[in-house]
């Protein structure tokens, strides 16, 4: 509708006529419907555009002259395309695939990177991050005490607000559920200019400790748990073990930040005031009218400088202002999508090369026609223009198919992404075709028309007229250098794509099925977060864990059960700075960091991490016995390179000395950036935490244990939810889903590239064979054997393929270096992959050359010679 009106406004320059037409259409709209409206608008615009201006008999103005020429060219091009429907369809189809792939990736970048937040003016919302001495702190690492000082002092921004991650356990009618939530200060919704759909937003008073028992829920939660009941406002629910009142419901699709379902006020017990050293909140704000991000940056720098003077903890700290979109951008997303866009563009280039080759062949067929027209006085410019019009029309014909293809791909991407990943990627739910995608596709189509149309068009206008006419219609077979070069280029750029995809596939397989350092099969995992309101002290945590193990262990099928604070391959991590007795760190202010795992006895044998030396933890390692630790091999190597770590002692800032009692094998916790990270293991009883995973091994199917274990846990605490219940294999899969995605898309692109390059080679060889029919016939007549003819033709394909592969290998090596630098994980430039894919490419290319070669060998010499 909007598009139709826009079109009409463009087509009808006369205001009075436009008013009449729009009025007429609108009057009929209720009776006839939108489809009718669009069709009418299209017809009217088309008629208005070809309508001759001015009165009959008056001389045409120059603008009309060009319009007429354009229309004539379009008409001519249309007829010429319709004469070869199969060629036209092939070109439009090929191009549609290439354009569609690019359009889909463009949409991903547009929605996930450029404007992930559905805000009216995203550039007015800022994110403030702290910069520390030495390093840039992450966006979610602001000290809450600093935030409150910023809020008190800032004048260039308003609604400056903070939020902090919060695992909420919601209980309502005895149905515990763990929700993704955030604790926020008043003003967060206002900074984003979003109002609750029901009830109210938070106010400053809600931040007061003791009056902070209020929550706001998401539309999703309202629908799922409360059946869209408007009376939910004022309802009391149990959140984190205490009563809370629902005061607001947010509008549909609002889930900032990162898929939140519930929000509570960020509030501090006066006994534990906001910290200036532990940095864990995210701060955003809205620019006041007339202020710029530079104003805000200048002001925040001043405030930060003042804080750095006033508080020793803040010495060396500053603030950086980003736009929200820029500040929240995940570092990996940009490079990954850029890689896709580059691959998609290569596929499009190969498609263009194929089309250019087809059109070159066609231009050769039309050389005589062109020569006649030139002889009769047509300008070379006219011919060039007509051919470019033809390419443009061809390219535009591919656009609808391209958009449909992009739509399908985006749909496939959306449905195949697991829900619990989808909700953490802002912008994912809004993937889909829009006006920007359509404009991008049309612009790219016009660009490709230039790429594949210019060469043949220039070629057609260039020939010598007299000679072509004298040749008497025989097409010359000598000058195919250009077409050969194009095919070589196609093969050369297909190979790097194939190799990259191949390396990616290998990398992912390694991730999923390579050695992990433990045995991921037969394990069921689940997570719990115990709230400090219900479990306030270490004793209550230990009691819960003891009861849990006692309840789960007897379940039929459970071989072994253990608790760990961060299970392998989970997203989170815990780490500690360590100070080793007898090995003072070179810089006492900057102690080395190791990963920390707190486990219950039996963990190592359950996940099958070997104890290389020393002993395992036992039930005798208790809170009241000597603190002990087991260290990983990598930790032992790093910190005790020359002596035996067993019996040695080290300490962390919070704990006194602990003794190393064993050395265990290394595991791969995180494939992306942590291999064999030095890790210390502690007995859970000595270092209890409320945030942990339960892992159990079973000889049978791990997922069959889920239901009985859930029941057993409800028996321990009926208000305690468990979440992310899945097999270890599934957890690994979800952990690597991003990489698998990357690789899957690259593989599709590589496949398309391979097919397109083979088709290009096939078309060229077929064409050459057809051109040399006469010559081949003669050779056969003079005694050449079929095998010799076959060899001759295949040799031609072989030379082209080898040339393309050689160039391609160089490109592939360069590209794999680049990817290794940018994407940790897809690494290992395995020479076998290069050789294998060069082989695949050569084999496919030879197959594409074999078919026309067979045809050449089967030429009947008598028939071939007679045709001349």
């Amino acid at each position: 509708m909007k598009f139709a009106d826009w079109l009409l406004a463009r087509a009808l320059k006369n205001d009075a006529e436009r008013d009449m037409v729009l009025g007429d259409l609108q009057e009929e709209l209720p009776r006839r419907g939108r489809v009718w409206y669009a069709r009418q608008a299209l017809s009217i615009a088309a008629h208005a555009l070809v309508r001759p201006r001015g009165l009959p008999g008056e001389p045409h103005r120059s603008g009309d002259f060009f319009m007429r020429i354009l229309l004539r060219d379009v008409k001519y091009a249309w007829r010429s395309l319709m004469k070869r429907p199969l060629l036209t369809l092939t070109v439009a189809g090929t191009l549609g695939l290439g354009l569609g792939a690019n359009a889909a990736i463009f949409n991903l970048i547009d929605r996930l990177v450029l404007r992930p937040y559905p805000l009216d003016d995203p550039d007015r919302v800022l994110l403030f991050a702290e910069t520390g001495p030495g390093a840039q702190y992450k966006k979610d690492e602001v000290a809450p005490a600093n935030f409150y000082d910023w809020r008190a002092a800032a004048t260039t921004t308003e609604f400056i607000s903070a939020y902090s991650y919060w695992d909420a356990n919601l209980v309502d009618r005895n149905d515990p559920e763990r929700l993704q939530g955030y604790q926020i200060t008043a003003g967060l919704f206002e900074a984003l200019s979003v109002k609750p759909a029901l009830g109210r937003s938070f106010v400053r008073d809600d931040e007061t400790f003791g009056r902070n028992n209020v929550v706001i829920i998401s539309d999703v939660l309202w629908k799922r748990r409360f059946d869209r009941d408007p009376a939910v406002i004022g309802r009391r629910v149990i959140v984190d073990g205490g009563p809370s009142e629902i005061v607001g419901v947010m509008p549909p699709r609002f889930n900032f930040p990162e898929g939140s379902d519930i929000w509570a006020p960020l509030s501090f017990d006066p006994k534990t005031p906001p910290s200036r050293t532990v940095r864990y909140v995210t701060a955003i704000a809205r620019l006041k009218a007339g202020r710029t991000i530079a104003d805000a940056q200048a002001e925040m720098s001043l405030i930060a400088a003042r804080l750095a003077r006033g508080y020793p903890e803040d010495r060396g700290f500053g603030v950086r202002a980003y736009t929200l979109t820029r500040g929240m951008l995940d570092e990996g997303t940009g490079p990954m999508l850029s890689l896709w866009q580059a691959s998609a563009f290569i596929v499009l280039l190969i498609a263009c090369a194929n089309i250019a080759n087809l059109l070159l062949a066609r231009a050769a067929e039309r050389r005589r026609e062109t020569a006649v027209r030139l002889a009769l006085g047509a300008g070379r410019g006219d011919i060039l223009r007509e051919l470019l019009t033809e390419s443009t029309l061809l390219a535009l014909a591919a656009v609808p198919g391209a958009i449909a293809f992009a739509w399908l791909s985006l749909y496939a991407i959306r449905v195949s992404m697991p829900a619990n990943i989808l909700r953490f990627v802002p912008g994912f739910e809004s993937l889909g075709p829009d006006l920007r995608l359509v404009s991008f596709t049309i612009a790219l189509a016009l660009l490709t028309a230039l790429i594949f149309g210019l060469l043949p068009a220039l070629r057609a206008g260039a020939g010598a007229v007299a000679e072509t006419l004298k040749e008497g219609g025989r097409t010359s077979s000598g000058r195919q250098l250009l077409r050969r070069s194009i095919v070589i280029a196609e093969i050369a750029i297909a190979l790097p794509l194939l190799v990259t995809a191949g390396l990616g596939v290998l990398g992912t397989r390694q991730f999923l099925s390579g050695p992990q350092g433990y045995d991921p099969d037969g394990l069921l995992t689940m997570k719990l977060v115990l709230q400090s309101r219900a479990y306030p002290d270490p004793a209550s945590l230990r009691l819960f864990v003891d009861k849990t193990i006692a309840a789960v262990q007897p379940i039929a099928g459970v071989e072994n059960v253990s608790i760990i604070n961060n299970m392998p391959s989970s997203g989170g991590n815990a780490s500690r700075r360590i100070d080793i007795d007898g090995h003072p760190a070179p810089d006492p202010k900057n102690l080395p960091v190791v990963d920390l795992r707190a486990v219950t006895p039996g963990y190592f044998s359950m996940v099958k991490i070997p104890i290389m030396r020393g002993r395992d933890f036992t039930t005798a390692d208790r809170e009241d016995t000597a603190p002990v630790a087991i260290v990983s091999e990598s930790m032992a190597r790093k910190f005790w390179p020359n002596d035996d770590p067993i019996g040695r002692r080290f300490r962390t800032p919070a704990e006194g000395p602990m003794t190393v009692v064993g050395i265990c094998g290394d595991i791969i916790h995180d494939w992306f950036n942590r291999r064999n990270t030095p890790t210390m293991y502690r007995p859970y009883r000595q270092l209890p935490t409320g945030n942990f995973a339960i892992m159990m091994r079973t000889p049978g199917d791990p997922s069959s244990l889920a239901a009985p274990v859930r029941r057993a846990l409800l028996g321990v605490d009926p208000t305690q939810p468990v979440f992310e219940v899945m097999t270890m294999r599934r957890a690994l899969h979800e952990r690597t889903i991003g990489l698998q995605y990357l690789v899957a898309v690259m593989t599709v692109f590589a496949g398309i590239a391979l097919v397109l390059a083979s088709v290009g080679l096939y078309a060229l060889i077929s064409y050459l064979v057809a051109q040399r029919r006469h010559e081949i016939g003669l050779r056969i007549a003079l005694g050449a054997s079929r095998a010799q003819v076959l060899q001759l033709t295949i040799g031609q394909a072989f030379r082209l393929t080898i040339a393309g592969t050689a160039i391609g290998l160089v490109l592939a090596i360069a590209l794999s270096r680049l990817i290794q630098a940018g994407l940790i994980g897809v690494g290992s430039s395995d020479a076998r992959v290069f050789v294998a894919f060069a082989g695949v490419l050569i084999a496919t290319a030879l197959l594409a050359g074999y078919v026309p070669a067979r045809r050449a060998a089967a030429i009947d010499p008598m028939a071939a010679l007679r045709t001349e």
Partner: protein
Amino acid sequence: MPDPIYLGELEQIVLLAVLRLGDGAYATPILEEIQTQAGRRVARGALYTALDRLESKGCLRSRVGEPLPERGGRARRYFTVTPAALRALKEGRLALLRLWRGIESQL
């Protein structure tokens, strides 16, 4: 004496439809009249082109009615046939009748 006006077939049909509709002749009823009486489907775009052309040739005059809410506050444009066009229509009809005379039996 102004130059004689030549009317194409579609132009004649449009003018006749406008005449038949009297005071109520705006685009939509003109289209419907042509459809029901002449049995011809004319594209809306072609009709606007014809109306524009006829007006610039001096065959039609248009006046603007009251703004109507169902048209989004826009007014209808009503068309009337000018005396010159009426004359041209009559002349065209007479010329055709003269040419038809005597050959009806052959068809």
